[in-house]
């Protein structure tokens, strides 16, 4: 299928019965959506499950979807809502642990056997502490922070994706960065990072 065909055209083709149009849309966005959700939930299997859920919802709702915003924005809206629900559900659970982080790193990071193993351990520990600080943010703060920082969205796009006013997005972003600064300061002071 021609890559130059824009998303809205593919949506129109899907509405008129073309299954291949949806396959193409999924091919275009599965990496981005999975990456976004993986950063957000820090668990490979949960991220996969949520990615499937995003496309499942999109497939079912696409027939009645009106292109008021970009298709990608709509997908991110579904993903963000699922991610926020996921974090809220997790927050209700008594213990929150990043049990799968080791497993993810094994899957995602190619081990460089020539480097110093001690240094590697230190780096891993440092990264884990920082990510734990990011995970301390509230669900909305984290979602806003991730979209703005790692999905290359402007404040306006984040606002559109989350259905918020731009001012609200800025407030969440400001609080997120201030909170991160507070959480990371002891680590800097102790030279842990």
């Amino acid at each position: 299928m021609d890559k130059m065909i824009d998303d809205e055209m593919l949506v129109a083709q899907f509405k008129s019965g073309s299954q291949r149009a949806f396959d193409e849309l999924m091919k275009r966005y599965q990496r981005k959506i999975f990456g976004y959700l993986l950063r957000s939930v820090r668990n490979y299997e949960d991220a996969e499950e949520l990615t499937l859920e995003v496309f499942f919802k999109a497939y079912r709702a696409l027939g009645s979807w009106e292109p008021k915003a970009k298709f990608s924005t709509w997908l991110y809206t579904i993903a963000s809502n699922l991610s926020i629900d996921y974090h809220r559900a997790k927050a209700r659970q008594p213990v929150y642990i990043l049990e799968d982080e080791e497993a993810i790193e094994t899957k995602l990071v190619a081990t460089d056997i020539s480097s110093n193993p001690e240094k590697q351990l230190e780096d891993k520990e440092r990264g884990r502490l920082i990510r734990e600080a990011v995970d301390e943010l509230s669900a909305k703060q984290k979602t806003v922070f991730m979209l703005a920082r790692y999905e290359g969205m402007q404040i306006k796009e984040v606002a559109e994706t989350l259905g918020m006013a731009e001012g609200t997005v800025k407030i969440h972003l400001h609080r997120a960065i201030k909170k991160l600064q507070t959480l990371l300061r002891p680590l800097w002071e102790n030279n842990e990072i």
Partner: protein
Amino acid sequence: MPKCNISEAHVIDYVYGELEQTQTSDFENHLTTCNKCTRMVAGYNRVLRTVDEAENEFMPHVIVPRNLETKLYKRLADAQPEKTSLLTRLSNYFAKLHLVMHEQKIASVCIFSLAVIVVAFFVGNPFRPTADLTLNRTNSANARIEQYRHQDIQRNFEDVLRKKHLRNTDSWDTVSHLNRVKDQAQGTDWANIANNQLKRVHSEF
């Protein structure tokens, strides 16, 4: 040193590149003289840099799980059909009906046009105005009445002349008949003819 009125929100907007070009250059000018803002910018940038490093280490490349499409279609196949309200179902029904009507619009127009042509061919022009029809009928009837009147005058005139020729009447009868015909023929050419005949009869007395 003048007191700094820049808000933290403004500093974070700067760090995120959300300020407009003029605001950015104004703020950068301000940074050259304000230690407080310079420290804030450095602090926020340090936060972002630190988090970026940790996030990039966590996920240098995204490896998408295999067969996501297959899993999705399996899930879609297993899923129960969505429960919809009566209103939604009615709305969908009318939407489909509208779509069918729209698709068959051309066919409907063709069939209607053909029907009009057939009716026009077998029955007559269905678009002919009714008022004209009545007028034509009236005109036609008046013309026929006028035609009968002329025929009647002609017949009476011939009768007068025949009786005069056969000498079945006297001159007074002939004059009387001609006067009746003349009265009957008022407004037509027959009146002149009858008048001429009357003059001839009088001259014959």
